């Protein structure tokens, strides 16, 4: 070992943690609280990533007067131009970030809303499987769609803070953006869960038919939640694009979804803090493993396989031993709780 750059380690870990935590929080809202078994999280993540990659790459070229029908951003000329033109105008870069976030939210959200249509009437199994299939559908579509680079994907995507010369400062700024968005996501999901809406969502999860008989428009509520969850997942996709500066259809495979599922099950179904914990444990262990495994020398068994076996077992064992995960679901905090406590206090006097 030559040395250890703890600051660099923290930056790179926290950035990835932030992106995954956003996914985990929204998945927990959809699946943990509202009971929609979303096995297709990666669809919306991928759509968000592609929206921002396409927008950024094309707009940078077009606004710099490049004819994209001649030099598309997925060709080698376009890629070199993107590298040259990408970081000239800080305002443009930040503007593109904001635009990407907004449009990715809208596109992924609407897609999530529309996808509820085929799954309204069927149970969790069909919902999960349909969304899982949609992920594969999206991947095959992207592989064939030339304007987003088809199987080549897009690369050399200018980052919002590419104009900051110092690489450490740039990474920290980006980390700030990721953690800021994570904080917003946490506040939003926390408020949604601890509101009459959150209560209705849990009711829906417990018994859809009873909720329907109590006047709840089950399909609309589900669609709304998938709109929010998918939209925010799309924003996480934007963050991923600028972090990797490259997108490729094969990044968005079902394994990404399963990883996020492992996080929320480990952390606790329906508990938002649990999702943060789950995301941090899994991303941290993954990262630490990359430091530890070379010390073990060449082994007969690839550590990556062992890692997945442990993730799979973790899902099963947590569900068996403690289905509520590390942090169990908390009762909903609304003013009603204060009212009842006042009532009890009044009685005991």
């Amino acid at each position, binding site marked *: 070992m030559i040395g250890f750059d703890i600051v660099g380690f923290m930056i790179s870990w926290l950035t990835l943690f932030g992106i995954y935590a956003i996914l985990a929080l929204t998945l927990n809202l959809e*699946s943990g609280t509202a*009971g929609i*078994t979303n*096995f297709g999280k990666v669809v919306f993540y991928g759509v968000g990533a592609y929206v921002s990659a396409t927008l950024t790459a094309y707009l940078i070229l077009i606004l710099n007067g490049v004819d994209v029908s001649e030099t598309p951003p997925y060709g080698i000329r376009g890629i070199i131009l993107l590298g040259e033109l990408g970081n000239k105008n800080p305002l443009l870069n930040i503007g593109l970030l904001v635009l990407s976030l907004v449009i990715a939210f809208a596109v992924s959200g609407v897609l999530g809303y529309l996808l509820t*249509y*085929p*799954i*309204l*009437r*069927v*149970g*969790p*199994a*069909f*919902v*999960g*499987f*349909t969304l*899982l*299939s*949609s992920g*594969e*559908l999206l991947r*095959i*579509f992207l*592989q*064939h769609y030339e304007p987003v680079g088809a199987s080549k994907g897009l690369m050399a995507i200018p980052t919002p803070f590419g104009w900051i010369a110092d690489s450490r400062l740039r990474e920290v700024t980006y980390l700030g953006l990721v953690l800021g968005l994570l904080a917003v996501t946490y506040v939003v999901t926390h408020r949604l869960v601890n509101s009459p809406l959150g209560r209705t969502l849990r009711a829906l999860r417990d018994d*859809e*038919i009873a909720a*329907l008989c109590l006047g709840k428009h*089950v*399909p609309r509520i589900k669609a709304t939640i998938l709109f929010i969850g998918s939209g925010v997942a799309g924003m996480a996709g934007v963050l991923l694009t600028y972090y990797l500066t490259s997108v490729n259809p094969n990044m968005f495979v079902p394994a990404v979804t*399963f990883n996020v*599922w492992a996080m929320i*099950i480990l952390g606790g179904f329906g508990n938002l803090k649990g999702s943060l914990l789950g995301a941090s444990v899994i991303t941290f262990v993954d990262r630490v493993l990359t430091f530890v495994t070379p010390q073990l020398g060449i082994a*007969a*068994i*690839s550590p990556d*396989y*062992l890692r*997945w*076996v442990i*993730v*799979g*077992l*973790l*899902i*099963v064992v947590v*569900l*068996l031993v403690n*289905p509520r995960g590390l942090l169990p679901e908390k009762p909903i905090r609304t003013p009603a709780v204060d009212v009842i406590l006042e009532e009890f206090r009044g009685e005991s006097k």
Partner: protein
Amino acid sequence: MIPGVQQALMNTFQYMLFYLIFSIPLTLSYRTTKVINFAHANFITYGAYVAIFLHGLLGLDIMSVAVVLAFIVTGAIAVLNNTLVFTPLQKRGSSPAIIMISSMGLWITYKYLLYMITDVARYYTAKNFVSYGRITYSDVPRGSIVGISFSQALVASLVAASLLVALLYLFLEKTKIGRAMRAVADNPSLAEISGISRPFVVNLTWFICGGIVGVGGVIWTSFSGAITPEVGDSAILQVFTVGFIGGLVSLLRTGIGAVLISTIENVGIAILNTYFGIPVSFRPFLTFVTLITTLIVFPPLGAGGGLPYRFLRRGSRK
């Protein structure tokens, strides 16, 4: 006339047989146990790898031995899953969604466990098990009748699928335990009263379903050009689609689903490619489009714990 239509038809038939062998147990197991089992993919893969390890480590090329062993191995895995995971979860009153997620966990575990086993096998034998060529068996006939060539896979899957359908019919209709299985599927509480031990019936169902799929996996090794530990996973989307067309309830509709999907995948894509220039690489796309269309047009109402009716447009009257 599309050129090469004979080959496409043969493939359709071959795939239909595989989909039958893989999907009917899926429907049967869901009907009886109400568990959506994602680990179904592992049965295919483990069945195939029983044959591969017999061939690669012991040099055995007798399909009948592989079939028996694979039936026992995958059947045992299915029973193990049920005993250690599904039954305890059901006893605690976990929702179908939770049980399905646990099966997803099992799926991941078994998949990578197999990868680990192939790693170890490679370490000791210096043979590559992660990608294994087609196995030619010594005890399966092949040949051609009236100009149509019967490959080993076709012969074996034809025998297996016919046996499956015939025996399943006889078993479910004519034997006491088979009727018990149907009773458990139709009305669990009633079955309990009539003196049938539900746990036994459920375990038996798992053993049979897991075993049949494992046998399908063995036959797959005589068909596919190269087998990887991903084989079950990459086939599972099609297998589930076939099962979903049957609503995971009707065996007949599952059979229709098998015909439909295999036709679309082989003949359908050939037509689209020849007349509309759609790339062949769109083939998996068609399967998913079929699935989504099925869900929109003929939703299997109430299946898998969903709402048992169709939500009408606001205020609309009949």
